[in-house]
């Protein structure tokens, strides 16, 4: 008998597909949270594989803040269509009405658009399981997050009351009102994600590749002026720089890195040689040391 040695990417893929299928087998009304970023792209690709030849049997949900990069909006609809999936977009009507934005409202922006928006959307459609693209290597508090993470009826996470997960067995039972966040790519690292995108030829937002883009510097972050809503200071002129993004969110909150990496191998090359960790580019984590843990307890993904 010839033994076929599975590579680490094949093992990770098999595990993720198993998780995706397990949720579909046990959930009543699942949904996949889709942020248009590279992790979402990988998760969506895995879903296509898991359910082929059927389209993934759940919709995509984008909790929109109206402040994403224009390139992200462009890819969003296309990706959903190619996967044969319904795309749901939710914008928190209250945030829309109050004009909540990252320039004037600071931390409130994420809180109202994303945390509240997500809860609203899940309640509105009655989703009982939501797939998320979080990875355990991103940050300390995520290293101990379960693959199936339970939320109370008001979406709170109770770290004291997590279920043990043994072998490949996931306990998805819940009472009415409770919901689950399921993380199929928990065990992937940033490098795994990039290698898989490279190997599988997955389409990602062009912002991950370097190009000349208009930028300004704010609080040590290099921000891209993606549209005319960006309030420039007196005399401030956006500078063209060769930049790319290692992670994507709301454009006024996402720091770019100066780079010449224009292809995927070059991006990976730069990532491997780089000396700062991925989340440093996100303003959200700088708030306070345990910020992610706190946000999660409140219902942020």
């Amino acid at each position, binding site marked *: *008998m010839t*033994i*076929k*040695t*599975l*590579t*680490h*990417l*094949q*093992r*990770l*893929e*098999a595990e993720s*597909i*198993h998780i995706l*299928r*397990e949720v*579909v*087998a046990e959930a009543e009304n699942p949904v996949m949270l889709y942020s248009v970023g590279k992790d979402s792209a990988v998760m969506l690709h895995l879903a*296509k594989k*898991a*359910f*082929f030849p*059927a*389209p993934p049997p759940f919709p995509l949900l984008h909790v929109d803040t109206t402040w994403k990069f224009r390139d992200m909006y462009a890819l969003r609809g296309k990706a959903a269509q190619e996967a044969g999936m319904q795309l749901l977009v939710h914008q928190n009507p209250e945030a829309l009405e109050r004009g909540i934005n990252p320039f004037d409202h600071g931390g409130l922006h994420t809180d109202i658009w994303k945390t509240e928006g997500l809860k609203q959307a899940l309640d509105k459609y009655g989703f009982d399981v939501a797939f998320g693209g979080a990875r*355990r*290597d991103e940050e*300390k*508090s995520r*290293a*101990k997050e379960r693959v199936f993470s339970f939320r109370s009826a008001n979406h709170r996470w109770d*770290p*004291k*009351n*997590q279920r*043990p*997960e*043994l*072998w*490949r*067995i996931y*306990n998805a*039972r*819940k009472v009415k009102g409770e919901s689950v966040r399921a993380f199929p790519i*928990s*065990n992937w*690292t940033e*490098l*795994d994600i990039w*290698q898989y995108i*490279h190997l599988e030829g997955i389409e990602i937002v062009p912002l991950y590749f370097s190009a000349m883009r208009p930028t300004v510097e704010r609080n040590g972050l290099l921000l891209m002026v993606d549209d005319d809503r960006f309030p420039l200071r007196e005399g401030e002129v956006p500078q063209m720089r060769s930049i790319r993004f290692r992670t994507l969110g709301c454009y006024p909150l996402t720091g770019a890195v100066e780079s010449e990496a224009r292809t995927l*191998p070059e991006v*990976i*090359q730069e990532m*491997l*040689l*780089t*000396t*700062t*960790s991925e989340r440093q580019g996100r303003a959200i984590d700088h708030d306070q040391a345990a910020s992610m843990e706190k946000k999660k307890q409140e219902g942020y993904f």
Partner: protein
Amino acid sequence: MTINDPIYKTDTLIAENIDAYLDAHQHKSMLRFITCGSVDDGKSTLIGRLLYDSKMIFEDQLAALEADSKRVGTQGHEIDFALLVDGLAAEREQGITIDVAYRFFTTEKRKFIVADTPGHEQYTRNMVTGASTTDLAVILIDARKGVLTQTRRHSKLVHLLGVRHVVLAVNKMDLVGYDEEVFDRIVADYRTFATSIGITDFLAIPISGFKGDNITAHSPNMPWYTGTALLPHLETVEVEDSREQAGPFRMPVQWVNRPNLDFRGFAGVIVSGQVRPGDAIRVLPSGKTSTIARIVSLEGDRDLAVAGESVTLTLADEIDCSRGQVIVAAQAPLEVADQFETTLVWMDEQALIPGRPYWLKIGTQTVSATIQPPKYEINVNTQEHLAAKTLDLNAIGVANVTTDREIPFAPYAENRDLGGFILIDKLTNRTIAAGMINFALRRAHNIHWQATDISRDHHAAMKNQKPAVLWLTGLSGSGKSTIANLVERNLARMNRHTFLLDGDNVRHGLNKDLGFTETDRVENIRRVGEVAKLMTDAGLIVITAFISPFRSERDMVRGMMQPGEFIEVFVDTPLEVAEARDVKGLYAKARSGALKNFTGISSPYEHPHAPELRIDTTEMTAEQAADLIVARLIP
């Protein structure tokens, strides 16, 4: 600082030829391992060291680490690697459940997933959780302390969970002057103990996580050690592929893929063996056979799939197969059983309640199960077997488990996926225990369902009738046998195919070994239930006349039948009326004490709560009762 230059630097290749690097790194294998030992043994320092030496620490993290080391570190001005991984210490202060944390690092040859769990006794469940998915365990020993109680506990748990490779890392060698004799003594101690619990093979390495000795490369401080360093061993130890693939093909069906009428695919993870189109398979527990038609994937059909892969299979024949069933190599079926001896690790604050039904999830199947009182509890520190009535949080014990239906399985020692299960509380939905099947009990062993082509529907159709069980229950002398006989005569006149099972008659043959104790009465009814079930499968209308005094057994028989096929007829005759009739003179005997365990006199009769039909024999004749029953069956 005494940090060595990271050996696993691949910067040159990355910088000079990224495509070559990517090609090499897409073919890495993966190893999951667990580190066992407490913070005092230097576990966090070791993990931090592995992350650092494999270059998984970024500059911003290192800067934060250096700052933290100066502020709260325990290593003077040197970097305290433990701070990198010690989210756990903080958790303890916050009162949060001490947990399993997963760390990741990559070298030239492998990706590693490290399960990092606290070592103390009150965290046994966390360690069990971490060990359940790992191929290898690194058991840390402080060279100054030698083999301790906790070393023994960790080793026992690792062995229990079936972790195949054990590394004994004798740490802090720098603090004992890199003394060979200290190392040899500890290894000899450990070997004696390990052999006693069944660990036949382990690799002992003298290390210093703090100084970096024998971590990535052989240490010049210990020239007397001629073996491999830790990381090179982790990179080359055999992964599970060959063992997993060498076994016969098994795939629990996880999800049936049915996008349209023309496609029916069975999705799941292959947990053993290999599969190719054309292979003969069997579906368990139904026993139906077919052959593999296709291995379907997004990239096109495949000609081979192996253990560890998530696949979608189609079969050549349209046979019933759903989530929870297992597709296996036709020539090597799995055992199917409903009673098992198991080893349980209790994980909940609420202790085990023997006899209470819990959900049992094994593979992709969830069934109802009850646990018998433990045979014994294992003291993991001393290996002693202790008498136990229950299992509390973190207790490990051996107990028999009964499931409400037969499930395909393999002993845990053979296959983790087919022998490992969790128990779920039906009320709180919490995962309350992890279990491992040791072996199946009783005659269920090694018997498979042989699928037959003529189905029960077919049998019934040939007889032009709907099978049913008319279950007459009531006191001795209530008139059950008389009424049952009339019912069968009426049905025979209507050309219905029937069979009458009478209590007294059955006790002359099938059940002549049984007496009238409560246990024997339960077994009497169980056997009659099984016979009645076979007869309904054959399409017959079965009429039974048994006292069947206990509600739970009547309900058990009801549960064995198809919904709607069990018709409970309560032949209601008051005790004094039955006793006054005393056709067989039994009541007189019972009253005199010559007959023990007589229902109504010295043994209870439990009235049905909601029978399909109640016959009051004080108000109607046997003929009227029979007409009523037949009318209920054939309106």
